[in-house]
């Protein structure tokens, strides 16, 4: 029983991101409640954590090659 609760805690902490080490809350923390700030950052960080699609790499490569060619 105890083990399953601990297990559940571990699963939750896997899925739910920990607080950012340096929360940029600072000044905006006065204006925006903590729960909302945390959620906004999580929404943003979820996209940040996605792999960048390949099309971006090929675009940058093109620019780089154009620069070298020029």
């Amino acid at each position, binding site marked *: 029983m105890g083990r399953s609760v601990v297990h559940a805690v571990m699963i939750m902490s896997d899925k739910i991101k920990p607080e950012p080490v340096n929360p940029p809350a600072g000044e905006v923390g006065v204006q925006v409640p903590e729960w909302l700030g945390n959620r*906004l950052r999580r929404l943003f960080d979820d996209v940040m954590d996605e792999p960048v699609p390949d099309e971006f790499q090929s675009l940058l490569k093109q620019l780089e090659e154009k620069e070298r060619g020029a």
Partner: protein
Amino acid sequence: MTGADLFLDQITALLPALRAFGRSLCGDPARADDLAQDTVLKAWANREQFQAGSNLKAWLFTILRNCYYSELRHRKFEVEDPDGVNAARLAIAPDHDAKLQLRDLNRALQQLPPDQREALVLVAATGLSYEEAADVCQVAVGTIKSRIARARDRLVELLGADAALVGEPSLPESSIDLPG
């Protein structure tokens, strides 16, 4: 390594943030990626205008934002995502409370006027300061603050007064200290 290579490397490092900012602005992943690509092209074409040592992230956000608004002006007769289809598509198969929360937040964000949404996201999510956000949006710091206040009030209204209560997962301490 040339200056141009370095510039491209720095842009590459900021791609995740650009994609995330674009998505928070328009709510549509595919369109956000188009915006981010346009931004890279414009940034590259105007690289001489970037002042070394200033905040590249804020500069790129400014370009992306300009791309977004000029696109909006061209589409002004189209209704923006009338049924919230794009917003709904963002969260695929929500499988737990945290995902549901983010889906709801995302939907609510898309209901805000763009100027309020961008102010809130820039300061509360991307980590820009009020001053940097004001530069990006080309308004006064006080305007950013009042937009954030309105955005916050509207989100609290849309997400419900109890959103804060069900907000962050919290567990009683006793359940954490159980012996394994």
